[in-house]
């Protein structure tokens, strides 16, 4: 369906090319970009548009979707008696909490690490490699490792701290656990980006500031931070988008608990569309659209806010 659309466009542009009379229509560029455009249309563009459409249908993933207008949105946004209303509130609320807790940590911790590594200590290469490494592990492997580390009875964490905290099934520990795991797992990329940025700041700036009597804290806020603004903006936006899509950590570590206090929206979307019962893909799609809108709105605000201060 989308394919023919693309082809039509191609023939149209071919026509224009002919009329301009410069040279004969050349098919060969489309042999290069065509394969990707076809895959892009089938597996990205079409499903994205279709995803918006089915949020207005009562689709069950099997039959033909039937258009129902704003029924799904009313159900999840307004109908307070509906379980889906509760799901959206809980899921979106927990997703926002997760973003709020993890994003600052995922900016500050790698920034500190990069600043530390920028003093070029012995063993720097090893430190850098180690901090980056977990980024290459899968979420499921990392969550198995940490569920064992944090385990109440046989986890070394409790043993060596000499406590009996139930890290995974009581609050606020469940949140603390999720945040620390996420920091451990994901800060590598941001750290490397900051390292490259810090490396690029001219030493003269610091020396001049030191001569003017600026202390190290002043130097950090007056020279270091402004110099790497672009990279901070980039990482804040990218990290926020990534954290909005949180799924694997609460699914495998806290199982969304205790009592759905860490169940994130993507877990409900997955459950409604692909879970064990009858699929309610229409509701799932409406939730996905809302999550998508939140992601776009928040990145737009961040972008605007952080760019503004130039």
């Amino acid at each position, binding site marked *: 369906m989308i394919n023919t659309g693309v082809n039509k466009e191609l023939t149209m542009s071919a026509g*224009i*090319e002919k009329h301009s009379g410069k040279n004969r229509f050349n098919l060969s*560029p*489309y*042999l*290069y*970009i065509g*394969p*990707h*455009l076809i*895959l*892009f249309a*089938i*597996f*990205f563009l*079409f*499903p*994205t548009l279709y*995803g918006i459409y089915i949020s207005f249908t009562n689709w069950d*993933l099997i039959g033909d979707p039937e258009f129902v207008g704003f029924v799904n949105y009313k159900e999840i946004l307004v109908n307070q008696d509906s379980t889906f209303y509760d799901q959206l509130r809980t899921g979106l609320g927990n997703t926002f909490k997760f973003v709020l807790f993890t994003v600052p940590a995922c900016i500050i911790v790698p920034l*500190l*690490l990069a600043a*530390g*590594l920028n003093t070029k*200590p012995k063993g720097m290469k090893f*430190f850098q490699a*180690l*901090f*980056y490494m*977990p980024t*290459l*592990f*899968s*979420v*499921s*492997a990392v969550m*198995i*490792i940490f569920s*064992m580390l944090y*385990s109440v009875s*046989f986890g070394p964490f409790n043993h060596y701290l000499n406590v009996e905290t139930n890290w995974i099934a009581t609050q606020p520990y469940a949140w603390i656990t999720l945040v620390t795991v996420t920091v451990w797992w994901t800060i590598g990329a941001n750290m490397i*980006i900051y390292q*490259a940025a810090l490396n690029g700041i001219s030493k003269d700036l*610091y020396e001049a500031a*030191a001569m003017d009597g600026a202390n190290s804290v002043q130097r950090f806020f007056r020279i270091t931070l402004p110099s790497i603004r672009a*990279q901070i903006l*980039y990482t804040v936006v990218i990290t926020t*988008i990534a954290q*909005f899509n949180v799924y694997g950590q609460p699914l*495998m570590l806290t199982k969304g608990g205790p009592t759905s206090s860490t169940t994130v929206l993507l877990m409900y*979307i*997955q459950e409604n*569309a692909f879970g064990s019962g009858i699929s309610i893909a229409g509701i*799932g*799609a409406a939730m*996905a*659209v809302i999550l*998508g809108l939140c992601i*776009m709105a928040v*990145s737009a605000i961040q972008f605007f806010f952080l760019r503004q201060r130039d």
Partner: protein
Amino acid sequence: MLSLTKKRISKIVALVFLLLMVFIWIVPVLYTMITSFKSEADIQTNAFTILPINWVIGNYQDVLFGNTSAPVAKWFMNSLIISVSQTILVLVIVSLAGYGYSRMKFKGRDAIFVFLMATMMFPAVVNLIPLYKIIDTLGWVNNYLAAIVPGAAGVFNIFLIRQFMQGIPKEFDESARVDGASDFQIFIKLILPLIRPVLTVVALFTFTASWNDFLWPSIVFNDVEKMPITPGLQLLQGMYALDVAHALTGALVAIVPTFILYLFTQKYFMESLSLSSGVKG
């Protein structure tokens, strides 16, 4: 000039901080490695000895081949097939497209490219449910293709490769063309060898992303035999919930390929990040 003693103090503070962090980052990895060589009996009786009393490799045999409801060796092979195939597919598709957008002149080229870039802002979560329907319609549920092909529709790698190609002087192409080379010959013989570094980066990132993908494969694979290892570990976790050594062995097996890849190609991972953030930032 910063005074020498002040410099030395800040160096020491930094080092102490880094060593503390090193401890936090290394312990989970070492704990996993070491525990995978402990026997279950060892764990029951001497749970918290740092090193195993008897080093055993039985956990690996059990996890890899011993459990038909969590066939880790099979999952591992599935993942290998999927990740290698996707990497090859992405390299072909993306280098062709990058060449098209960077080197060829055609109507609407820049408009299409700008449109592709703009779609990167669309949140991927919206296409999750319809994508399943497409895969189902194609008959690809529980088929490797479901995990291989959709990933090649992405846009970011094209951006990266085009960016890199723009840095190659156009005079190279022109002189080759004067010598009678066709577009395709220029692409294969001239451009491809020159963009090897960025292709390596794309390959490494595609492979690791494919290997580590969790949500999507857990939706399109429900047949235990066909599953890749990353969603498979969720089943394994349920199975070995109270069996530390076996659960950790499974996790370790799953991270070995990307770990080894990283050991040999660290340089590329590091460079690529400054590459991709540098052009965006």
